[in-house]
């Protein structure tokens, strides 16, 4: 049976650590299908009223994200994961939704058995104000395994 694993990464260098961990753990696993997922949040018209500016911002993030994901894929390959088992996915959101919810929805819709997320090490105050994707995923995930890479 095919094993499907969803690795949620963001633009931070830190999230590449999660990719390295996955590669090192699973390179000997011949059939594992690894999807690298990134969510890009379009700025709200409230914070960036100019539509053209918003579009060019998203485009800039998309290029940067794609470059990062390609680097991540290269790192996976370097650990021995076959290219045919690596999939890249960028999701662009135009309205404010929870990134954790999007990741969990993706897991349910596509039947991933494992979610992997990096942990950014936010402070308690930051967690209060801004929330934490990894904490929400750990709390809300059902019918799958969650790996949180520090």
């Amino acid at each position: 049976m095919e094993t499907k694993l969803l690795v949620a990464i963001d633009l931070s260098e830190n999230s590449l650590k999660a990719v390295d961990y996955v590669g090192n753990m699973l390179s000997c696993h011949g059939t594992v299908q690894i999807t690298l997922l990134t969510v890009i949040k379009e700025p709200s018209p409230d914070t960036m009223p100019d539509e053209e500016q918003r579009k060019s911002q998203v485009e800039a993030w998309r290029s940067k994200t794609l470059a990062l994901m390609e680097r991540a894929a290269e790192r996976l390959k370097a650990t021995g994961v076959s290219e045919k088992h690596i999939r890249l996915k960028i999701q662009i959101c135009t309205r404010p939704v929870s990134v954790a919810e999007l990741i969990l929805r993706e897991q349910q819709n596509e039947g991933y058995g494992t979610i992997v997320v990096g942990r950014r090490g936010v402070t308690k105050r930051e967690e209060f104000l801004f929330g934490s994707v990894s904490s929400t995923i750990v709390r809300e995930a059902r019918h799958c395994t969650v790996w949180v890479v520090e």
Partner: protein
Amino acid sequence: MNESEIREKIECYARFPERGKLRILTDTTEFMEVKAGDVLELAGCCYLVRGEEMEGRFGLDGEPKYWVKRAIDLSNGTSKVLKLVFHESFIMNLGEQRIRCFRSPQKEARVLDKTRNDPRFMKGFNVLDSAGNLVRIIDKIKGAPFLEYINSLTMDHETYFFKHFPKIFDQVFSCIEAIDRLHRMEELHGDIRNDHILLDRDTGLYTWIDFDYTYEWFESPFGVDLFGLGNILLLSTGKGFHNVPDLAACGPIGMKMKACLTPEDLSLFFSHRVINLQKMFPYIPDSLNNVLLHFSQGARIFYETAEELLNDLKACKTDLPY
């Protein structure tokens, strides 16, 4: 209205009528140039500008907010606040946490529309000026800010808690319900402060004002508002804020109290502010004190929605001295 009709209305409604030449403006883009004595003609109505509203916090006392004009509606003489378009982005301190904040006229206009039928929010409407700027025309609320009201109460805490607090708690609870309703409409207040609730003298209601702050997307969309609600609960329960240095200045009793406090009893955001008020005022019931502790350094879990906070506060009602 032509100029002579406008002058007539000014004579009728303004205490100090304009003697010189009248400037009638329809474009508010250059809001710094809109001065007291000017008339703004917006969507067919005329407003006599009386001056600017003043900033009242963060060491900016007396600083005029040039984009917020005090005005008289010349159709009926009522006092209005005209908020003109001004975009800015700046770093704000929420206690010891810094956060980028944006001023958004369209966000405030949207909240005004969505809360039109709720008396717990300031009332107003939105019009476009001749240059397409979104102007918010807001009814001036007569009444003291919540912070000023609490500070004006002179009795000791025990008398306050048993005689006055339950009624205040009910009003604060209603304010939090209003914010919960706003959140369900996918909007933030954005600037919940103790002086952004006014005690409306006409309706007797506690009323939220000023909705033009907004933020980038966060995983927890309501965290900033919940931070503000925690401060309001703390202020109302404690009849003011209680800081460790103030205790130290209270002689032996204060020093003894200070010795009982651990970091877990203090605020997550203001490291000298006491959250565990039960240690100071033992008659505060556990149920209410436990709600406050969600905002302390010792908290293990935080409220993520106003609904969660309201559910816990509902349970407190039976323990309060009604």
